[in-house]
């Protein structure tokens, strides 16, 4: 249950929930715009260097990218189930599901790490460090810079999300949440879906041509 002082400030748990939801939506809007800058840069340079970008895309490991897409989508479904469980007053199950989703997030990061290691070995590094010989430097180094930025900032969001889901999972398992008080779990869920949706844009533009 939320602390009493808080409900007093709000009048009711319903109003508090409404504010929390609104705050989360606004936050999500700012996140979308944060990525919008990068997507714009990607669009501009893709139209300036169409061939180089396509060639650079072909060097991406589509297998690992697709694997990660599956992992993330699955985790998103697991989180949705967790929210459902908590709302249905089964916080134990909800907690377990949240922790499972956090684990999937860790797996995602591990796969991403493997990919980065490949790129480093091949020389597909950002900016000045670019050593990859298969694709011409001008343009391709931009592709790789944008690749690292998009996936790196996304990975940062995944890392934060793993932390959030873990905390929520532990607290849910301890019985903090339930049918009467599910807002934090719902908000955590919204954040995780955002992470998932951003990836669903990053994945096709970087891996599929």
């Amino acid at each position, binding site marked *: 249950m939320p602390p009493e002082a808080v409900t007093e*400030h*709000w009048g009711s748990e319903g*109003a508090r929930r*409404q*504010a929390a939801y*609104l*705050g989360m939506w*606004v*936050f999500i*809007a*700012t*996140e979308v*715009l*944060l*990525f*919008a*800058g*990068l997507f*714009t*840069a990607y669009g*501009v*340079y893709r139209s*300036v*260097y169409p061939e180089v970008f396509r060639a650079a895309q072909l060097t991406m490991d589509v297998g690992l990218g697709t694997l990660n897409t599956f992992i993330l989508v699955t985790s998103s479904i697991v989180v949705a189930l967790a929210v459902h469980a908590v709302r249905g007053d089964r916080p134990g199950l909800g907690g377990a599901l949240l922790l499972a989703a956090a684990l999937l997030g860790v797996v995602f990061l591990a796969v991403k790490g493997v990919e980065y290691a490949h790129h480093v070995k091949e020389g597909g590094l*950002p*900016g*000045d*460090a670019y050593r990859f010989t298969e694709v011409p430097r*001008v*343009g391709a*180094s*931009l592709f790789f*810079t*944008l690749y690292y*930025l998009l996936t790196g900032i996304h990975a940062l969001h995944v890392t934060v999300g793993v932390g959030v889901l873990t905390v929520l999972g532990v607290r849910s398992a301890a019985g903090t949440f339930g049918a009467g008080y599910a807002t934090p779990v719902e908000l955590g869920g919204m954040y995780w879906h955002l992470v998932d949706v951003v990836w669903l844009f990053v994945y096709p533009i970087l891996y599929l041509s």
Partner: protein
Amino acid sequence: MSPPAAESYLTDGRTVWSWLTTHDHKRIGVMFLGLTLFFFLVGGVFALALRIELLTPGRTLMGHLAYNRMFTLHGVTMVWLFMIPAIPSAFGNFLVPLMIGARDVAFPRLNLASVYLYVLGASVALWGMFEGGADTGWTFYTPYSTTTGTAVLPVLMGVFIIGFSTILTGLNFIATVHTLRAPGLTWMKLPLFVWAIYGTSIIQVLATPVLGMVLLLVALERVVGAGIFDPARGGDPLLFQHLFWFYSHPAVYIMVLPSMGVISEAVCAFSRKNAFSYRMIVYSTLGIAFVGFFTWGHHMFASGQSTFGSGAFGAMSMLVAIFTAIKIFSWLGTLYRGSIALESPLLYTLGFMFFLFFGGMIGVAYSTTSLNLHWHDTYSVVAHFHFIMVGATVMAFLAALHYWFPKMSGRCFPAKLANGAAVLIIFGFIATFVPQFLLGNLGMPRRYADYPPHFQSLHVASTAGASLLAFGFLAIAGYLAWSLRYGAVAGANPWGSEGFEWRSASPPPTHNFSTPPEYPTGPHEYASEEVPHAA
């Protein structure tokens, strides 16, 4: 049992610690006020140094590199550390909950976090200044900003962090206005200041993330040579300008919209009239917030963008002027046949209206490509944005400071001194910036430490005006500091204002209201014109 209520938010805990850990929106507002005032002082000292350097041709006070650093730090401090947070974060925080009958903002802890982020960002930027300081100008144009050897990185990072503070504040206000209005306080009864802060918050949360990303890209370019904005590496420096102005043009409205809110309040309070066409003021606020996102290209007429693009951006820019004109008409309509009290907040308000009108009309002229090419990057542009930003934001800030000083401190200030300072400031202001229009028209480029001798008389006039301004600010600081201790006790509503914020005690108690306020009438409704003004 709760402990007996403290008299006011000021006496509820007197330790420094109780301030540093407070969740009270009023204390957070006061902290922001102190911080922004401090940076206003810092930025002002830089400004005076610049004006002194320009007193004579050749070297007067500092070398060219020092001059470049100085105007960069002046711009960065004034824009990001003073003008953007000053009214929303300081007065918005203090007043919005009071005006909508709430006990606090929606997310008090987030609110406190935004103070700390601001302090962190400011410290990082200041550290950059001590590391030698950037010399790029506040706009950080690439490719210069990615190649110069000065300390650009900490300044970029500082601004980046402050951006988060801005976003949190805006998010908080949006949620507060949506969910915490007292029962019966409908949208169309909201005080105009609240509407202005609401419109500003929308711009803040939508535009600031883009700026954050651009600054990050420039930082990356400096660190790993990413090449996004560097033509030598296949990148495009103009992309920077597009992304930068996509933020920074709306950002100029982040600076001016809250001012318009202050002015709307002051105009009603000091003419003792209901706002003339309340709805038009509201709609034009939202209109400015919206159109502001489609005008950024008017900063790039000289960049070789397409003629069609320039025309379209020019036309969109002129739309902003229409919305602004609607506001000016509404204020004039409110003043017309009002029972005018020429108190210092109203003097600043009149100054504001003049500067906004004059500066805005020049903006319309700039939006035509032909005139723009003549004036672009000259002192004329410097004068335009100072007219609008200083003439508007600073005037409104001073109006707010005087109007709400009794609310915040519970004390009155000496009215005659305040009126004198206001007149001094308005004239100092005109003397500072009108010569700059003339300089620009004669071809004096902006951001130069040196100039041919025939420009000197106008520069001297401008510097003289700046000194008048400095005296005015010193005077204000003096009598306000004095009044904090020795001013007459204000009482709940010394101006006899019908603004909603005056329904709580002055200074307000910790949770704002002892009984929930009711809202049978709209804001600024003056039943009789007979109530005398105090103070």
